[in-house]
């Protein structure tokens, strides 16, 4: 009686197991299970709009307090989550086994991360951010102050709630719909290394903003961060396509700022609702790979007129090349349409560089002539575009020279030589005959 039950349980377990272990995969890039680490469980309700938007998009959220001793992202070498949201700016140390290295390993194994700092950001959060290329202002008491583009409110205030509208110009990251309203931000700023090509300013501060302690007097020294060098929200796309969002404000995720009306100082436009919800939602869509995740499949090449892929080309062969590129729409792969995908025929340097033409159904193709150089070539598709995951495909293919019998057998310029040879041979033959038999 008990045996079938056990077997059933086992079967269940076995059927669950793949679900458990299936983490981020290139075929289904959407992350489904997200660990949300909070300072305080009250955030769960105060930021519920943000969380419910995630839930409505099909994510499982697992809320944990930062000092929860059971906090862990990994068990038996498998990641239990596909994404991590750290809304715990003041945590000095996670409970359980998670630490900075743990979080970074999580990212390095291809998972996504949203980190939010705040005015009292801990070293832990700062370190995580720094490891991702984001340097928060090192003065722990400094916040962003902007006396010209602050959010107008009833009280004069200290202008730390600022209205930012300098978004990154990318439909991929922020969606097709333009964000009309300004975004409310209250928190600390950070700077990026301009040489770092992976990190992008998703939301920049205005030229008049600076980072200082609002309660203290301005010193004669210029503030460490000021102007457009300040980034308020940054996104990172790591080489393994893991995406990271780092924000200096915890409040910008909150229901309060989501719902708040906004009027930027000096501007007559007053919006009923701030742009925060749209901005955060669209950005989180990008972060969790609902947009801008490309895959390239079926890299094919063949000689013109043939369909089989050869193991080797000959110099000056005409070939056809095709590749299919799809984009993840959040639920399925849709054709990616673009006019700027290029293929290189590469051996230490590109010998051929061609823009691929597309049929609008994901298929990109071109044809070209193999250069007059033999060696081991590669078909290379290097597609790196703002917001999209980078495509880097290469396929090795040797190119051989002509065989001895593939040259033209008779060429016009050489006719004198053929004539010389054959007349000589004929002459010799006739001479021998005459000499031998004509005595």
């Amino acid at each position, binding site marked *: 009686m008990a045996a079938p039950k056990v077997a059933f349980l086992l079967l269940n377990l076995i059927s669950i197991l793949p679900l458990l272990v299936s983490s981020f995969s290139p075929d289904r890039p959407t992350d489904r299970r997200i660990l949300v680490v909070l300072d305080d469980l009250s955030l769960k309700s105060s930021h519920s709009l943000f969380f419910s938007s995630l839930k409505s998009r099909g994510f499982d959220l697992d809320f944990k307090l930062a000092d929860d001793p059971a906090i862990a992202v990994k068990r038996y070498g498998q990641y239990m989550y596909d994404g991590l949201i750290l809304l715990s700016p003041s945590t000095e140390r996670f409970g359980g086994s998670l630490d900075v290295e743990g979080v970074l390993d999580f*990212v390095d194994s291809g998972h996504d991360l949203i980190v939010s700092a705040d005015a009292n950001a801990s*070293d832990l959060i700062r370190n995580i951010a720094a*490891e991702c290329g984001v*340097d928060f202002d090192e003065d722990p008491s400094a916040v962003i102050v902007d006396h010209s583009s602050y959010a107008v409110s009833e009280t004069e205030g200290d202008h730390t709630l600022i209205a930012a509208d300098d978004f990154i110009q990318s439909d991929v990251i922020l969606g097709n719909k333009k964000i009309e309203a300004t975004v409310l931000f209250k928190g600390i700023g950070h700077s990026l290394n301009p040489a770092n090509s*992976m*990190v992008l300013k998703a939301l920049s501060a205005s030229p008049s903003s600076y980072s200082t302690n609002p309660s203290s007097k301005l010193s004669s020294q210029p503030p460490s961060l000021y102007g457009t060098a300040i980034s308020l929200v940054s996104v990172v796309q790591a080489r393994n396509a893991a995406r990271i969002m780092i924000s200096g404000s915890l409040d910008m995720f909150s229901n309060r700022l989501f719902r708040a009306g906004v009027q930027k100082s000096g501007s007559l436009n007053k919006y009923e609702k701030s742009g925060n919800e749209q901005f955060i939602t669209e950005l989180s869509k990008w972060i969790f790979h609902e947009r801008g995740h490309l895959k390239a499949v079926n890299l094919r090449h063949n000689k013109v007129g043939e369909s089989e892929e050869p193991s080797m080309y000959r110099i000056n062969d005409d070939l056809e090349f095709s590749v299919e590129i799809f984009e993840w729409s959040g639920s399925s792969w849709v054709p990616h349409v673009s006019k700027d995908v290029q293929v290189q025929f590469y051996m230490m340097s590109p010998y051929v560089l061609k823009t691929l033409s597309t049929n609008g159904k994901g298929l990109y193709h071109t044809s070209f002539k193999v250069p007059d150089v033999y060696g081991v070539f590669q078909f290379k598709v290097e597609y790196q575009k703002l917001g999209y995951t980078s495509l880097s495909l290469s396929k090795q293919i040797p190119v051989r020279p002509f065989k001895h019998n593939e040259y033209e057998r008779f060429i016009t310029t050489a006719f004198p030589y053929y004539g010389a*040879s054959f007349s000589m*041979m004929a002459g*010799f033959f006739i001479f021998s005959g005459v000499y031998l038999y004509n005595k």
Partner: protein
Amino acid sequence: MATQETSQSATFRHAFGNVLSFAVLLLIGVMAFSIRLFSVIKYESVIHEFDPYFNYRVTQVRLVFVYGIFANSFLRDQFVYPLGRVIGGTVYPGLTLTAGTLWRILNSMNIPLSVETVCVFTAPVFSAFASLATYLLTKEIKGAGAGLTAAALLAMVPSYISRSVAGSYDNEAVAIFALIFTFYLYIKTLNTGSLFYATLNAIAYFYMVCSWGGYTFIINLIPMHVLLCIVTGRYSPRLYIAYAPLSLNVVSIRMLNITFRREKAASSQASSLISEVKLGIVRVVMVVLGTLLAALVPVVGFNAVMTSEHFASFLGHAANLQMSFSNSVVFIIIHVVALVYYIKGILSPQMFKVAVTLVVSVGMVVCFAVLAVLIALVASSPTKGWSGRSLSLLDPTYASKYIPIIASVSEHQPPTWPSYFMDINVLAFLVPAGIIACFFPLSDASSFAVLYIVTSVYFSGVMVRLMLVLAPAACIMSGIALSEAFDAENFLIKAGDTTKVTQNDVKHEKSEDTIKERSSRKSKKKDKENIERPSLVSQVEKRLLVLPLETSVIAVFLLVLLGAFYVVHCVWAAAEAYSAPSIVLTSRSHDGLHVFDDFREAYAWLSHNTEVDDKVASWWDYGYQTTAMANRTVIVDNNTWNNTHIATVGTAMSSPEKAAWDIFNSLDVKYVLVVFGGLVGYPSDDINKFLWMVRIGGGVFPHIKEPDYLRDGQYRIDSQATPTMLNCLMYKLSYFRFVETDGRGFDRVRNTEIGKKHFKLTHFEEVFTTHHWMVRIYKLKSPRNRIRGKTKKSKSKSGTSTSSKRSGTRKKNPWQ
């Protein structure tokens, strides 16, 4: 009756002598084979060193295909990534064809040997053949006795052993046989005037061309000899027969080759009229035998044979033009001479005189015109028809001055005096005696032998590797010397006990015998010599008779002793000096024998732990081995046809880590292999070769400067070394973690403590180091997934430290 009896006994003696010499030859062959087996017995049946691995690989791969594909086989990814390499066009096919055929024959006889076994034993087998060929050649020059002695000497001459021990599967293995055999057939043709031998000669020469770049030696030596014969008034129709077909052969191969290449060029762009005219002139020479040859040779392709720039061929691909130049000149001269002799025969003296003046005046004009064209031909080639390697033959310092890549090979250095003693031993003392013996009497054949020894001595002085060409010549000469000496001494000893009359009879008979033989073989023209010879012999006899018996006995004893020393030396050389496969090393110390099998350990690691497509970068010495043993693609290998490519690797090795990483990454390299001898004292490691990498790299990329790596002109790796040296990739990869072995990092090759002991690698990670640290393999780290920000990671948790973390001045390194 008496004459019949004597002739009967003579035939009997002849038969007996033939059987005896056959038995002796057989034994010599067995000895030649077995003396080369030390390497198999002491180590194992493996292929040695570097180049043989490539040959082995080619044999292996080609056996899969059909013969004809050889010329076209483009071994794809395996060799010299990413430039590729056309095997047919860069390799002498002779060796691999030979071994492949051998393997096929054995297999068809149901003797299932592996390809490797056949390759390993090809060289010993062919050295037995070479002994046979030496016997035949020397017999043509000075008779059977000298032939046997020379064959015995050649069978064990250390110079030849060094290149033909079992496992040394290199071109020289078959080429020396081909060289001697070609010379034999030339002399045979010269002595007999037979067209049959002339044809054989042409074929043997063709085999030589297929096998080794040293064929240029033959094709320069023979015209020189022909010229010598003509100048000394020894022109005969036999000479013409011996030379003309061969020369035609050569010229036609060359012409075919040139036209082939030109046609290739012409197919892409119209060749100019001038070059057509030039070609037309030389093309006329290509006649019947050329087409015959073209029919003889399968589609191996002249291009494959002739355009090879295989580095292993030290005589190399000497300029085609200069070769055809010397050949054509001699060719024309011999025709003129032949014509003159012919006309002299059919005309009356007066008419002849008139004809001479006419022909000379016309001939001068024509000659000048032809010369002018030929000189223009030579001058029109960019290097004046001289390739770097041929120039270094004439000027030994040329390569080291201008071409570091040639000079970096130790085989291309001029030899030291001890190497003569090591490689030809007592032969060095016997050669002069042999030369003298060749002048008594001077025949066409012996003059050839003299010419051979003289030229080969010169060439061996230029490059240590050419010692190999000298060895057969030295053996022939010494064989002649020894056999002549023994003849004389034996004769004296006999003369001591027997009466003078019988002795004289025997001697006379003998000499008559030889004369008869010779005169029957040669044409009637030797009348003059016939008269001279007995008198000369008797003169020599008289002179020698002065020596007393005891002296002769002592002399014989001393000669035997000399030979014994030679044998002892040769066996020692074969057993100790030359049989190490250099892939497995041994060292003897107080606690017994140590075996260093690190190379195979490393290659096995590579083949088991890396992806099939991974590329391995190393200095070019290890390219062939990596290809053959690890079965991985290499960036450069021992065939150095692309200097820039090697220079790129040299530059990477001499650059700091980051720059090196960039270079290697751009070449798709996954692993870097370095050979390091500092732990066990293996002197030919990469640190010792490093200056060559710097030089070769600097030759193409001028930012690598040799003085940066030298402290006051001295190459050192200790604390006095320059920062450039201590930071270059080669230093780092060699000495990474080295200090952990003994605590202070003492390099046993350089006998010094290393300069920089504790350092980390940022762009490379060590993945494998062999047991004795002789081979170290590193992997290129992939670029970081994220790029870190400026802020330093704080170790302390205290909030106060945050303000001290400001590090604005620190230069940002995105890789850290």
